């Protein structure tokens, strides 16, 4: 077995067998306000260095586009910052926010109720060193959708806390995540 275990930009590389493990998957059978992965420190903290979440998502937000957000440790204060580099289908733009109550890991790239039927947004999110308590935790993601609404974005985010990440919560802004959306979390050894 040959592995290229980490990073959506990686074009080549390798690693030892068993460096990239599926930890948990949630596939929604009914609409839900959020999806969470918890008890991460005690369950995975000693075995893995990085985490990756691979998502395929649709929301019930009215309109064509939606936003996917993420929080750590149930912290909903102004502890987050993020940047988005966006391709809108007609131009390239960037946005940035500080002192936010969550991180944006998919910017306008989650289909809403008016988007093409059966279209889902794809999101690949890397969480770097989530179990290190000596530095703030950083996140990067690549997200996109091609439907009646088109958007692609490369995102970076910061959890302005040195606390190790024990719980991850993912939600769509002002809407539910709809049935058939899927979230899988992977551990990457260091």
């Amino acid at each position, binding site marked *: 077995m040959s592995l290229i275990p980490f990073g959506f930009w990686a074009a080549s590389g390798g690693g030892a067998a*068993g460096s990239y493990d599926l930890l948990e*998957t949630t596939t929604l059978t009914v609409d839900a306000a959020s999806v969470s992965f918890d008890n991460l420190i005690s369950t995975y903290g000693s075995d893995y260095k990085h985490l990756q979440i691979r998502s395929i998502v*649709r929301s019930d937000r009215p309109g064509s586009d939606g936003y996917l957000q993420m929080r750590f440790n149930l912290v909903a204060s102004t502890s987050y910052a993020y940047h988005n580099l966006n391709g809108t289908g007609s131009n*390239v733009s960037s946005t940035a926010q500080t002192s936010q109550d969550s991180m944006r890991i998919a910017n306008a790239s989650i289909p809403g109720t008016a988007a093409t039927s059966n279209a889902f947004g*794809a999101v690949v999110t890397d969480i770097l060193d989530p179990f290190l308590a000596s530095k703030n935790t950083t996140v990067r993601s690549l997200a996109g959708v091609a439907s009646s609404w088109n958007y692609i974005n490369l995102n970076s985010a910061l959890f302005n806390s040195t606390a190790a990440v024990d719980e991850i919560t993912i939600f769509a802004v002002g809407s539910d995540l709809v049935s058939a959306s899927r979230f899988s979390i992977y551990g990457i050894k260091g």
Partner: protein
Amino acid sequence: MPTPTYELLHSTTLASPASSITIGSIEGTYGDLILELSYIPDAPALKPYLTVNSDTGANYNYVLMRGVGGTEVSASRSNENYIFLNENGIGSGEIATSKIQISDYSSTDKHKSMLITAFRVSGNVQATAGRWASTAAITSITLTGGSFEIGTTANLYGVSK
């Protein structure tokens, strides 16, 4: 219980030039597919594109953003017959790479979403979100669009869900 994944399903290294590369008989036991390409065009310039399940109908949609040394471009395409990996094309003798990630490729309840990153060593970087407008499971992937030179590699991985 953690499950080791990211398994190599197929590996090709071209020993002679080829006008296309097809990876068939893809089993449906994984959640996502990741296809890593490192390709070298033969003259004339290569403009590789992707189709799945031998479908050349107008069922492909994509949006891209690209940086070309000081110029940024975004465009969207609807009802196309394929998805370009790099719309700028690759010049003869250059080396380019692409990573194609297909989510829930074996599902039958959603269209197939793709995230593609492409790098042309002397030219540009591009990210693309694509959709194949079908709920059919993907069982084959074909890359076409010119001539792939000796040394081109295509490695397909399966990621469990």
